[in-house]
């Protein structure tokens, strides 16, 4: 058995036996317009707001376990891969694509090489354009990385999500987990449309903010 095969089996069992029961029983998801996410068989770029490590597990658990093998969250190399152990765990169990947050003189293609090749293999990536977890459940400025990726892969749909809840379950400032049911709102997929990367980024951000507003409206019927 080669390494790729082994990693897939480990990741599959990890999600089937641990993550999914944990996410669906201990926590709980209330997903709106789930079909918009599931009709996509890959490649796809999933974009979401980010408040907690739980975000990634929630999004991945929405998919059938076999599809989860194709999902790769883009994660900060300096945080998730700073030790050999962490790097092994996150690459094997979650399947992260590490990316450097401190780009110096590398060219764009080099930084995005792993992401581009994953998308070429019909895989799905998750990216949090805020760059890091927020602390007060506010949507922060989006970095333009998503637009650069979308520009290099104009045929790959970008699916914006808004997640509410994980900031209560496991906030950045606390290490104790408290169960809550999370809400996930899924928007229609969009494609890169030859605008500037800045404009595309703000377009994605306004979609996420609109999802947030629908959530607010639902809260105050």
């Amino acid at each position, binding site marked *: 058995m080669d390494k790729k095969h082994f990693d897939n089996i480990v990741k599959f069992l990890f999600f089937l036996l641990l993550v999914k029961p944990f996410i669906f029983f201990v*926590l*709980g998801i*209330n997903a709106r317009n789930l079909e918009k996410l599931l009709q996509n068989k890959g490649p796809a770029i999933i974009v979401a707001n980010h408040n907690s490590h739980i975000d990634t597990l929630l999004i991945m658990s929405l998919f059938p376990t076999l599809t989860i093998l194709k999902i790769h969250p883009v994660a900060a190399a300096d945080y998730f891969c700073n030790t050999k152990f962490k790097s092994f765990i996150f690459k094997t169990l979650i399947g992260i694509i590490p990316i450097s947050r401190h780009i110096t003189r590398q060219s764009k293609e080099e930084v995005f090489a792993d992401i581009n090749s994953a998308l070429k293999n019909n895989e799905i990536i998750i990216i949090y354009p805020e760059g890091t977890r927020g602390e007060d459940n506010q949507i922060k400025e989006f970095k333009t990385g998503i637009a650069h990726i979308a520009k290099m892969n104009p045929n790959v749909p970008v699916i914006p999500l808004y997640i509410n*809840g994980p900031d*209560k379950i496991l*906030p950045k400032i*606390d290490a*104790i987990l*408290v*169960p*809550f*049911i999370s809400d996930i709102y899924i928007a229609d997929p969009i494609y890169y449309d030859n605008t500037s990367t800045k404009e595309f980024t703000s377009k994605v951000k306004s979609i996420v903010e609109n999802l947030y507003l629908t959530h607010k409206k*639902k*809260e*105050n*019927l």
Partner: protein
Amino acid sequence: MNTITLTYNVKFCILLLYLVLALITIAAYILGFMKKNVENFKTRMKSFWIIVILFTAAFMFNKLAAIIFIMLISYLALKEFFSMIPTRRSDRRVLLWAYLSIPIQFYFIYTGWIAMFYLFIPLYLFILIPLRMVMIGDTDGFLKSCGTIHWALMTCVYAIGYFAVYFSIPESINPTGGTLGFLLYILILTISNDFMQYLFGKTLGRHKITPKVSPNKTVEGFLGGVFSTALIAGLLAKFLTPFSFGQAFILGGILAIAGFFGDITMSAIKRDIGVKDTGALLPGHGGILDRLDSMIFTVPLFFHYVAYYYNIGILD
């Protein structure tokens, strides 16, 4: 000792329940073929099947399995409640304590320590919740937070715990139905009460009874529900309980009133918070608390009725 006795009458009632459910499902599918719009009804029935099958499966095995099953429902309900209400960030640890009270409460139920079951949430958590909160020290919205958290525990842990505490009743006091007889009796009464109130309200309803909380409820529906539930309670008592017709008739009336108020209390809470359903766990029904609303009041009340007659758990 741990096994649950299924008397002939209980088996018969369970079989009847499945039969009724099957008939309704078949009717729904026939209507579906006739191109009537019953999609929502079908999803409701699907959820109903899952609930009934899970319940019977859990209660067939033994006492421990049944109590664990109720404990998991209690957890899901409490999580639903905490997700529905606005909570303060500073209360995260208090909420964790609230969650941890569930296994303790169900431990008391399993060991048959009924006095502790009676007291743990109303007394000990009444002290422990504010204790943990003052240790954190956020006084902004203190009373509201303290009140909602304790109310959540009373609803989702204390009241739902009563489903499980029926298994502590000695089977000898109910030769026709056993412990499961009591539980089946109260579940049938609550569900039929909901249905009868709906039926009488739809056919005869004129005068709104709670126009601000639940505009669809009428005086006629309420009274029709109370009297028909009293009658059903009286007729069914012989098969599942040790109560006489008269005892059960009065009991049925009380339970119908309690069920009605349980239902609209949950409606009032949902209106206060501004949500339509308490959750989305049961497709077609909403959340667990949407389904259990009237039982939150009736199940504990009926237990007290039984305990009152047979002195259960007062002095042990």
